[in-house]
């Protein structure tokens, strides 16, 4: 599955309006996955720490976790989703391949990080995150 990437893991970027939310979800996902050095990072808020979405913060985070096996991005809502989609559609700022996962931020992050830490490729990471929508809570 990861043959072509020499064991490199897929990087995960968590995009939120809030830096605290993004960073906290990243550390929770790594902890729940039992992999302290999991390839996941938060990309929340504006460069000055305020609430919002920043292309700069997202692209820097993506470069940080890119190990050559691709980068998966999860986003919370509104401008976070739109900014990632715009970067994917128009720009060359993100590592290649990069993909926005259709998944809820918190639940999707857990599935994505567990799968990426275990060596799953980008398609497997995406499938794991997107499965979060099939789990009904009521």
């Amino acid at each position, binding site marked *: 599955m990861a043959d072509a990437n020499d064991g490199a893991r897929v990087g995960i970027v968590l995009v939120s309006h809030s830096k605290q939310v993004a960073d906290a979800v990243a550390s929770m996902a790594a902890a729940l996955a039992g992999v302290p050095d999991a390839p996941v990072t938060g990309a929340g808020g504006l460069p000055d720490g305020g609430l919002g*979405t920043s292309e700069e913060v997202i692209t820097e985070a993506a470069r940080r976790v890119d190990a050559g096996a691709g980068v998966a991005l999860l986003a919370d809502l*509104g*401008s976070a989703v*739109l*900014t990632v989609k*715009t970067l994917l559609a*128009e*720009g060359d700022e993100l590592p290649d391949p990069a993909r926005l996962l259709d998944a809820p931020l918190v639940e999707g992050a857990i599935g994505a990080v567990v799968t990426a830490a275990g060596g799953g490729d980008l398609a497997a990471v995406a499938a794991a995150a997107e499965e979060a929508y099939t789990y009904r809570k009521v």
Partner: protein
Amino acid sequence: MSGKVTNGAGEGTGGSAEGWDAAFFARWMRAAADAVDREADRLTELDSAIGDADHGGNMRRGFEAVRSELDEGVPATPGSVLMTAGRKLVSTVGGASGPLYGTLLRRTGKTLGDAEVVTGEELAGALSAGIDAVAQLGGAAAGDKTMLDALRPAADALADSGGKDLRAARTAAEKGAEETTGLQARKGRASYLGERSIGHQDPGAASAALLMAALAEAGGEAEGSA
């Protein structure tokens, strides 16, 4: 004001009978920065009624960054002016309007291609392509109480006049923006308000009308100073 306008001459630095060059598009973006700066408080006030009260500040920050970029040098073609401006908006606005306006300008610019001078018809077509990209990105349609309700009528009015009547585009955008007051929001944060969003003008449609007014202003200067 930068650059003289040479109507009908090949080496123009603005608008002409044959079309518009990079200087014209830079003037459009600067006029938009002026308008957003002037109207920032009103945009924020509209946004505080049905959104999160940051639209004026966000748009001002974005278009000031566009202005600074153009002050350092105007790209050579109309398309590259718009793509540069769009890229700047995506990276500086910080709210949903960044990727939305960024996509509008980038896709419009990309559609204009490498031409050094574009006709009004080409602009109308490219603008329409840019608006399609915005609709696709945001998943919104006409009547959802968004910027599309100002942009689409403006692009249609421009196309109907064969790309000649920038004032008609402006008027159509302003009318479209005003008419969002009676609509219920179906996209973005305002949609959570349901029926309570009725009775307030959409801030994104209001800023889109400013963008179209700035286009007409840039065109007016091109006509007026020959």
